[in-house]
């Protein structure tokens, strides 16, 4: 089993290379010197204090949360409907439609971004809340559809038939039978949608305006324009927000596996 040992050693190195570099951002955020030099000198919370007291950073955080939450709601609602619709319809070209919903995942973001920029310019949607939500919904929707579809595959269609014979109409059946059963997938999809929007940068860079910037946009602008270590603190906050949300999503899917087992 020397092969397995060698592979394991490689895997450990791979994981370290994947995870460790990102973590340098944490000590940097506690740096007491006003520079990005590593290793940091001393310990200070000044960059966090900066972040939480600077109104422009707070506005960006607020915008990000607002956009992400609304995107989550919109993408989840549309995604559930689309996934259920796709699970029920049968027609020629259905897989074409499925792929249509999923392509935003593989089309280069920069191309969508310039298209949206051009479109939003004309319709005055640049730097608006609806503009951000709609743009983010397009890239969050596929993730909801994928997760809800996976959940739906574990639901016996006869449960819906049973519900109908017992006197429940379509809506009632959806809310008391189908939705509870696909809840793990819905939760995971919703959280994915939230994180996708919260971390989204390329589309946001193009459709931003001084009036509305999301957190990643402000981080990017700050990094490219000045060397302000506050960014490290912001990055840590953003990172932990995403990781916590994704851990929740992970927990939700675990539960899904248990229920379907």
């Amino acid at each position: 089993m020397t092969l397995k040992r060698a592979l394991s050693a490689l895997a450990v190195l791979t994981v370290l290379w994947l995870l460790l570099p990102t973590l340098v951002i944490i000590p940097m955020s506690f740096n007491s010197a006003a520079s990005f030099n590593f290793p940091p000198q001393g310990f200070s919370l000044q960059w966090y204090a900066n972040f939480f007291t600077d109104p422009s950073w707070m506005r960006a955080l607020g915008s990000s949360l607002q956009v992400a939450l609304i995107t989550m709601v919109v993408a989840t609602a549309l995604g559930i409907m689309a996934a259920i619709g796709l699970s029920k319809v049968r027609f020629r070209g259905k897989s074409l439609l499925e792929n249509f919903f999923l392509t935003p995942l593989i089309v280069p973001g920069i191309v969508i971004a310039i298209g949206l920029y051009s479109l939003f310019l004309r319709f005055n949607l640049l730097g608006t809340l609806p503009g951000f939500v709609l743009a983010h919904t397009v890239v969050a929707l596929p993730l909801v559809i994928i997760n809800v579809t996976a959940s739906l595959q574990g639901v016996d269609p006869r449960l819906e038939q049973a519900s109908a014979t017992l006197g429940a109409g379509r809506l009632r059946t959806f809310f008391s039978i189908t939705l509870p059963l696909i809840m793990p997938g819905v939760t995971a999809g919703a959280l994915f949608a939230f994180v996708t929007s919260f971390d989204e940068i390329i589309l946001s860079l193009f459709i931003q305006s001084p009036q509305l910037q999301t957190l990643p946009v402000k981080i990017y602008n700050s990094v490219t324009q000045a060397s302000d270590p506050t960014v490290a603190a912001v990055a840590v906050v953003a990172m932990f927000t995403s990781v916590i949300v994704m851990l929740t999503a992970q927990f939700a899917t675990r539960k899904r596996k248990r229920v379907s087992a």
Partner: protein
Amino acid sequence: MGYRELTGMSDLSPIRELNKLSAAGGNTTRPTREPRNWRPFLLLIPAFIIVSFFFLAPLIDVFIRSITDPSLGIQNYVWLFTTPTNMVVAGRTFGTSFLVTIVCLLIAYPYAYLMTIVSDRTRNMLQLFIMLPLWTSILVRTLAWMVLLQDTGPINGLLESVFGIGPLPLIRSTFGVALGMTQVLLPFMVLPLYSALAKIDKRLLPAAANLGARPVTAFFTVYLPLSRPGIFAGSVTVFILGLGFYIIPALLGSSKEIMMSALMYQQISGFLMWGHGTALGIFMLTTTIVVLALVGRASKGTSLFAGRTK
């Protein structure tokens, strides 16, 4: 006609009447259409509208601009293919993406293979470790690389104190871009690769060994060909995602060695040359589609979307 006898009822005459009517066929019965089977289509409409208006329409808009801005014609594509710097940028973009794909494959293959031979618990852990980085935004991770790779950063510091060399151009170079991209794209290689490797019958290798093949020969003649769908799926995903990267080249790359997405940004945002920028966009999109179509045929059955759940 359809049946012989109906029922054991005492008075059969109405039943016979029923029989006759049914035998008479169409004029007595009206076809009732399959009801409500159009309803699920309604559920698809909202998503369809959103994706059409804010994904498809923008792409069409990009295409239209590329042939109408500033005037109708293919002058933007002529510019694209006849300007030497464009070709250099395109070559660099494809080259970097290709390099990243190869490196990802080399790192991912042993990792994915290990996932197929360990216990369920370890496998779940290995999978979690591969997914964890996906949960952190590219921006934050790139920021971390900037700290590490800068000229006064710890890596160059180490190189200088131990080997007496440097500072090496780790950042503001294609090396930095490739390093960052490889790290971000690795999961997209591991996940489809693993799902393909998991399907390969583990007894094949000992079987080949029994037939006299050396382990290395057995691997290259039996296992590797069987894992081809996974290799294709993973490679195509990494390659096309790599083509469109913007943030990492912008932050880790050199402004003198830009990639296509930066060129697009430059043309549109910097020079307001919408025609040039959109033509570049269509070029990138077309390349993506062509790569997908070419490799998609070879990797049938392996989803490019593997790993986007959970």
